[in-house]
């Protein structure tokens, strides 16, 4: 392991994932450092979710290895907390029991874990909703519970797979804002998947544009836009410049994959 | 050869005349549906069929098997059976409800010693059964026997535990000590008696009505479906002649009869002989006396006893079901 690998929070080394003939991922090498907010950007089927599933340990790679915080990934590990697009809240548990779930699995006593859970519920702005069941909450609130649940477990890395895609634009904006606040406060390493260029520019410190057939990282761009990414920043020339750069890359990749399918 | 109309008519007439002559031999056999089982009460009916006596009088017997008397009685009610031997208890139950579909036309036999109450080692008399467990098949002749001998020994209802156990399970239950005594009929009765250390406490000859009326707790009667009998009087009389021929065989040549029954009952020769010789096979000549005399009074007393022991609600007038016109 070289110096580079040793410093990284996440080290993806020579990863490939094949399903029979289909090459979901091929030759992916990347290092993600502690505290980065990495956004995986790309059209459907380019392997973003696959890569995330390999990092969490839900799937095993066909070739290569992934090391998270010095430990090689070979099973599902709570050190990589996942926020799902469909929330995956336990419908039979109240908000507070959902959030305290990971702590319960660790064997932490009831009083203590509920106290911790309350803190994170407040952090995501859901104070007062502790005893409600998920089916009484709106989509945006459920996603907040999902984030609180992952945070309460204190993972090294937080992974989010298109978490706001199912929400309406206004709720999405609120949650993006909250996520950035949480990021700044907790300094966690975050990998975020989206197919929205605007979302990527808004949240990331670094963007990885991926492409399909085979799945791989095409471009690695540092996002040097200043924080906070307010309206002024979003309307700045640098924003548009970056956007244009990404747009072209994404466009050509989409065209290429469309051509690949049409024969 | 040309077939002109006249020769055609002549030839057809000859052919149909010859055909008509052969018809009587085919018209012979009438069918009677008999409801039976391997129980000894059905021996005469089975032998009459096996030895060809029924065929001699032009009757074909359609044998229907029934495991219980109550199932056979149900078949009488619904018309599935025309003639059959049945234990009187089931017949009395139906008679007490006013069912008129059947009549008693003969008494086949008297089986005094093929059922009884057997106890495990350590129990010498019926009186010793106080506080003990007794296994018997409910709603059967042995059930009534148990209730009667318990009463005779002065044991009140509740002072002994009488449990409902089907025939085949009784042997296992007494062998493993789950019950202290078992009341059963042949062949279970014979099997239980073979267990080491058991003692026969009572058989039908200890039954209170047996001593006065020679009536066992569940005598067999031969029943006929009234509707069938009304429409086929002559047939029923012919049937009975063949039937009693078989009864005579059982009484006078028990070895020959036993031999013929072995395949039907599945018993071994010793057991079969015991069953055949252990019963009194009543001949046709004795029937009139049985059907009109003391025996019928005994059956009436039996009905009253069933009422006393709460087995049926009210006692029917037995003689209303007796039809002695066929013997």
């Amino acid at each position: 392991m070289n110096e580079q690998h040793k410093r990284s929070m996440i080290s993806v080394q020579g990863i490939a994932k094949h399903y029979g003939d289909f090459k979901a991922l091929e030759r992916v090498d990347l290092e993600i450092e502690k505290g980065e907010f990495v956004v995986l950007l790309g059209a459907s089927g380019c392997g973003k979710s696959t890569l995330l599933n390999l990092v969490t340990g839900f799937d095993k790679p066909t070739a290569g290895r992934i090391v998270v915080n010095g430990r090689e990934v070979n099973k599902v590990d709570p050190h990589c907390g996942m926020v799902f697009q469909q929330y995956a809240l336990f419908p039979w548990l109240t908000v507070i029991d959902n959030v305290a779930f990971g702590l319960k699995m660790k064997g932490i006593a009831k009083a203590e874990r509920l106290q911790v859970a309350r803190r994170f519920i407040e952090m995501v702005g859901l104070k007062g909703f502790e005893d409600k069941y998920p089916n009484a909450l709106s989509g945006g609130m459920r996603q907040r519970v999902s984030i609180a649940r992952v945070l309460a477990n204190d993972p090294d890395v937080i992974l989010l797979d298109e978490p706001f895609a199912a929400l309406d634009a206004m709720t999405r904006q609120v949650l993006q804002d909250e996520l950035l606040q949480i990021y700044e406060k907790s300094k966690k390493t975050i990998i975020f998947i989206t197919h929205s260029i605007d979302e990527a520019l808004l949240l990331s410190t670094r963007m990885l544009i991926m492409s399909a057939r085979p799945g791989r990282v095409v471009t690695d761009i540092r996002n040097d836009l200043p924080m906070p990414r307010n309206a002024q920043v979003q309307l700045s020339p640098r924003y548009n410049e970056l956007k244009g750069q990404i747009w072209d890359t994404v466009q050509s990749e989409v065209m290429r994959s469309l051509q690949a399918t049409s024969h | 050869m040309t077939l002109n109309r006249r020769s055609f008519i002549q030839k057809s007439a000859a052919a149909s005349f010859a055909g008509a002559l052969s018809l009587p031999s085919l018209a012979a056999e009438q069918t009677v549906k008999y409801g039976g089982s391997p129980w000894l009460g059905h021996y005469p009916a089975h032998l009459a069929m096996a030895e060809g006596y029924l065929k001699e009088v032009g009757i074909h017997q359609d044998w229907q098997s029934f495991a219980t008397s109550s199932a056979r009685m149900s078949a009488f009610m619904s018309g599935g059976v025309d003639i059959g031997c049945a234990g009187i208890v089931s017949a009395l139950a139906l008679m007490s409800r006013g069912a008129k579909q059947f009549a008693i036309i003969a008494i086949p036999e008297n089986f005094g010693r093929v059922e009884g109450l057997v106890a495990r080692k350590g129990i010498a008399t019926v009186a010793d059964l106080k506080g003990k467990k007794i296994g018997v098949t409910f709603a059967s002749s042995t059930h009534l026997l148990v209730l009667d001998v318990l009463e005779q020994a002065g044991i009140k209802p509740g002072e002994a535990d009488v449990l409902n156990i089907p025939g085949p399970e009784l042997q296992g239950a007494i062998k493993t000590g789950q019950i202290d005594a078992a009341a059963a009929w042949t062949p279970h009765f014979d099997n239980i008696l073979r267990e080491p250390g058991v003692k026969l406490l009572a058989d039908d000859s200890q039954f209170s009505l047996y001593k006065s009326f020679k009536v066992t707790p569940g005598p067999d009667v031969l029943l006929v479906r009234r509707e069938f009998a009304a429409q086929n009087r002559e047939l029923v009389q012919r049937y009975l002649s063949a039937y009693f021929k078989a009864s005579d065989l059982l009484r006078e040549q028990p070895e020959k009869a036993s031999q013929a029954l072995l395949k039907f009952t599945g018993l071994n020769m010793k057991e079969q002989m015991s069953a055949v010789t252990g019963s009194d096979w009543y001949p046709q000549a004795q029937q009139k006396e049985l059907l009109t005399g003391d025996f019928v009074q005994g059956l009436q007393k039996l009905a009253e006893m069933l009422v006393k022991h709460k087995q049926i609600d009210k006692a029917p007038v037995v003689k209303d079901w007796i039809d002695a016109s066929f013997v």
Partner: protein
Amino acid sequence: MISKAPSRMALAATSAASVLFFIALWEAVCRAGLVDPIFLPPPSAALGKAAAMLGDGTFWPHILASARRVMIGFLAATAVAIPLGIFLGTSSFARAVFDPILSFLRPLPSMSWIPLSLLWFGITETQKYSIVFMGCFAPAMVYVIEATRNVDPLLVRAAQNLGANRWQVMKEVILPGSLSQILSGFKVILGLAWTCVIAAELVAAREGLGFLIMNGKEFFQTEVVVLGMVLISTTVLITDFVFRHIENWVLRWKQ
């Protein structure tokens, strides 16, 4: 004009009226002498018998004896089927081992267990519980395994991601996640348990609705047989009602 669907009250009233009408028709047919009372006893005869049994104190013992046997057999079967079924539902290896056994057990009628159960348990109440148990166990297993496999796999992943090990997944996710389907299936199993009551009470029973029916049959007391049947159905209806309320309370997160 769009016609309004009848209200729940109206529907309930219709059901009640339908039952009453049927009973009245049955009574009328019997009274008119159209049918021999042995073949079809009038409802009044069954009610009369019920009144007589209430009078001499035998009514409730029969019902309670059968209810006890059915409930204990049913609860024992479910207590074993739920954890075992969840385990089998999560392990395809375990399923491969046990599926043939379950397939063998499932179609066997409860009556076929009488000889073996008598040998194993003798003429005890345990033997009767075992008949009900064997009548319910295999179908209950099938329901639990089905329900287990219908749990959203995403929830399992989320739990694993939050640090749950294999047993914690079974206890904290699969069990609560499949409970809804299990409870609805078990209403059927409870009905099934009651169909075993006659077989259970065939040997060495002195009371019980199964015993009542079979004993009544031997003596052609058809009104007792009908009464026994009605009492079984009514008891099942009542237990169903209670079960439904328990189900709603357990699954209150669904509202």
